[in-house]
């Protein structure tokens, strides 16, 4: 019953789609995390003027569908004559927003950045008081304390929640296919429309996504074993004890 030719014929597209999906996921996660670190510090600030804009940013990106965000950026920005002018003037920065790849990358980065900011802000807020007191007692300045105590500790505590976010992001990149990008889902939609074989086309893509998901889960498990080693159950001591 299975038409293997649907898959074998489209194997090159699936391969390049897999590569594009991996690229979009890794790049947006990396950029989003880098931006989220300073933003989460601002988010927990007591000054309204500092925390407010970050709150508004995360509220918008967490309260609206990523698909609509992508459409807003990809189709929406072209509405403005000023931006069209920048495109005609070959302004390198604004040209990013004319390409589907650039728009997808920007949308995904901002989206994951918003979620990661909230995850990290939560982790920063749960820093044990004793750690802060100890840092102050050692005479650390606020910046030194952030760099040595608060941020490293928060990154560790955020790891389990962040692994969920990373998986959501992997799955979220599937909407890149709606702005003509040939990611894994795009390759599957293409294979479907060529052969009208939905089961072969989409189940094969699903299996590849499942593999990527398991790989990501495995990587995070390794990371947790390394960075949250102090929270692991104690191993029994092997060998003769004295």
């Amino acid at each position, binding site marked *: 019953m299975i038409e293997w030719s649907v898959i074998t014929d489209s194997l090159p597209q699936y391969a390049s789609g897999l590569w594009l999906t991996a690229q979009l996921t890794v790049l947006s996660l990396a950029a989003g995390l880098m931006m989220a670190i300073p933003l989460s510090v601002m988010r927990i600030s007591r000054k309204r003027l500092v925390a407010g804009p970050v709150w508004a940013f995360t509220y918008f990106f967490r*309260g*609206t569908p990523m698909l*609509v965000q992508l459409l807003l950026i990809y*189709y929406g920005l072209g*509405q403005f004559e000023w931006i069209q002018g920048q495109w005609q003037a070959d302004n390198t920065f604004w040209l990013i927003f004319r390409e589907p790849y650039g728009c997808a990358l920007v949308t995904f980065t901002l989206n994951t950045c918003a979620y990661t900011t909230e995850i990290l802000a939560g982790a920063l807020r749960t820093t044990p008081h004793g750690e802060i007191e100890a840092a102050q007692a050692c005479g650390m300045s606020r910046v030194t304390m952030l760099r040595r105590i608060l941020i490293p500790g928060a990154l560790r505590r955020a790891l389990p929640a962040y692994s969920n976010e990373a998986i959501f992001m*992997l799955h979220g990149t599937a909407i890149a296919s709606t702005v003509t990008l040939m990611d894994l889902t795009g390759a599957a939609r293409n294979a479907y429309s060529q052969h009208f074989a939905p089961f072969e086309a989409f189940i094969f893509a699903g299996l590849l996504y499942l593999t990527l998901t398991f790989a990501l889960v495995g990587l995070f498990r390794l990371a947790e074993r390394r960075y949250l080693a102090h929270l692991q159950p104690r191993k029994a001591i092997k060998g003769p004890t004295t």
Partner: protein
Amino acid sequence: MLHGYAASLLDGAWLTFQVAVLSLVLALTLGLAGASAKLSKLRLLRAPAVAYTTIVRGIPDLVMMLLVFYGGQMLINIATDALEWDYVDVNPFVAGVATLGFIFGAYFTETFRGAFLAVPAGQLEAGAAYGMSRWQIFSRILFPQMLRHALPGLGNNWQVMQKSTALVSIIGLSDITWLADQAGRSTHQPFLFYAVVCAFYLAMTALSSVVFNHLERRYSVGVRRSAA
């Protein structure tokens, strides 16, 4: 207002709301059934539930939706051909609700499973000691207590689910996102219309968090909050 598209967008908003609520009902049902199966002593029930939650949570919702929409159409075509019936179109509304319900049922399964496990076994034993029937223990002790533990997780899943409803526009359902797309093309003001869609989703998610906060407070009556 909105170049005459306000009424059409309102229709789309109503449709999106219907999709969200109906999929929520389906997902809650599947979630309760899935959690019961996963907690069952019978391996025959546990194994499919584990497969369900693992596979569904490992695949993007869009891929799942395309599979159900196009694959469902193919299955129906095969069935109607075999029975020599007339051609039947898969309704994108049904396909959208079915897929969203099916996907989020897997997430709700995990939420409910954790919540059931969080109810102290001593309370259930106390119920049995009072001579309550199994149904009485379930409806008076297990279910209300479980709901309190489940509510934060349910709230989170519901927030994610509402935003996933935008995907039904891809399979051709005229929800608010699809209508905004059409309006944006014909008026050459896509930004304006997508911004309206964003405002709609923000309003819906904000309203939901008010409702869920209220529910959480209601179901935590009599539970001491930690000082932190």
